[in-house]
């Protein structure tokens, strides 16, 4: 065995975690507050829809998914005080009014014939946007300082991918003709426009800005 007294690096050669991340504590908390808000709106809507959906398999899946998003809301609720926000309600909110309009349109369908619209709003618009926002956060935050958020993001993303697949398959199973496809596409387009106007679930910059110029390298000091 190697000499236990011989000094080793704190980071093993395979451990490439880095400082810093793109977000400071305040920005991280702001994002997490918007995540909690949208997870709440989603689990409430899924819970409300259960009674309005006649398709038995869909009814049961919505009941199951309802809990997934409630659990995500709870994770974000618990993370906020750790990000210096001792009153989690203060940061629990939409990023802007456009996001409120999106949620109003998302939760509008009620009649038992509107299962396609209900599912399209969640699984073709909102959940793909959540996956995008969470992935951006995961890939840009500091893997050292923000490890607790990363751990939650990974659990949450696993649920989002699984639920997205469930939802997409339910939608495909309900689309029987060209008219259904058009219905689904029209509703998706309407909601997508609202979410684009909101800038994503965390507002503008939800997934960064691909046109932003890279930071200028600091001028070299002549020797």
């Amino acid at each position, binding site marked *: 065995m190697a000499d236990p007294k011989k000094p080793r690096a704190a980071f093993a050669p395979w451990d490439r975690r880095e400082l810093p991340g793109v977000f400071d504590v305040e920005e991280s908390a702001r994002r997490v507050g918007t995540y909690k808000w949208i997870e*709440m709106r989603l*689990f*409430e*809507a*899924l*819970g*409300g*829809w*259960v*009674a*309005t*959906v*006649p*398709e*038995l398999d869909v*009814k*049961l*899946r*919505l*009941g*199951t998914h*309802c*809990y*997934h*998003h*409630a*659990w995500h*809301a*709870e994770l974000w*609720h618990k993370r906020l005080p750790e990000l210096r926000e001792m009153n989690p309600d203060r940061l629990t909110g939409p990023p802007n009014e456009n996001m409120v309009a999106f949620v109003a349109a998302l*939760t*509008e*369908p*009620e009649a*038992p014939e509107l299962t396609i619209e209900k599912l399209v709003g969640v699984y073709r618009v909102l959940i793909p946007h959540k996956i995008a926002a969470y992935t951006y956060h995961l890939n840009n935050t500091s893997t050292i300082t923000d490890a607790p958020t990363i751990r939650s993001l990974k659990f949450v993303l696993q649920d989002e991918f699984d639920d997205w697949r469930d939802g997409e398959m339910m939608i495909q199973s309900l689309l029987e003709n060209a008219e259904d496809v058009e219905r689904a596409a029209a509703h998706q387009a309407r909601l997508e426009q609202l979410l684009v106007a909101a800038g994503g679930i965390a507002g503008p910059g939800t997934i960064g800005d691909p046109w932003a110029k890279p930071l200028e390298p600091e001028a070299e000091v002549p020797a």
Partner: protein
Amino acid sequence: MKHALPVEELARDERFVRVELFTRAIDPRTVPDDRQRAGPRIKITPDRPDAPDAARVLMHGIFMGELQALEGAGRTCWDFETGSGPQEAPFELKLNMARQCWDEARHCEISVKLGEWMGTEIGEFAEATFLYEAACNPDPVLRLTGVNRALEGLAIDVFNTMREFARAAGDPVLEFCEDWMLADEVTHVKMGSDWLRKLTEDDPERRQRALEFQRVVDKLFSLGGFRGEDDDSPIRLARRFRELAGFADEEIDEIAGLSREARDEFLQHRAALAEDARERTGTDG
């Protein structure tokens, strides 16, 4: 989507047929004629020739209850603003209700698989919507006492009794299903007990209203007094599991008393219905 969805709007496919509770209770397919005459206190035992059918009827009724419990818990997530006011639901309560949605969805899945095992088709027996009706109360605390404490308390008694029946009958699938659902129901009843205490801590009047609502539901759904503590009670009060779920001894005693009252009233009600039917059809029964 509006807040508060009336029971008539519960979405179902064409297999499901709804009837009123008492109509269901006097339907000979649900309760055969000879049992109707014998009164409500017929326990399901393996030696009864109609035991498999009686168990199928009961478990299909439980399936319908699971479906409505899922819908009711879901509506409680949606119907109320988040907050601590009397017409609001706290965040943590909604989280509990969402958890209950998942559990009840699993209970529906279990019930469908169990139905296949027992030879029952979905919708084979009529649906009574009393559980969802209790879940429509505008006060979330009353929803939790009516549904979680009263009706899911009843579910504890049913699952415990049917688990014993399954053991006696040598049905491992039924026993397995009851065992798991019983565990979840204890959790749901405890949610009801905990939230009742928490939300009415400083509001004795609201607590009183909630307990009164629970009493009414308990009595109504003692279903002719078929639940009790006697050896021949079709459904035995599961004292130990009720204690785990936050019931005090006196509360369990009270339910036993309500069940006795309900039995007497059921017999009177049935006699009146039979009399009414005789008058309308001109037969003598």
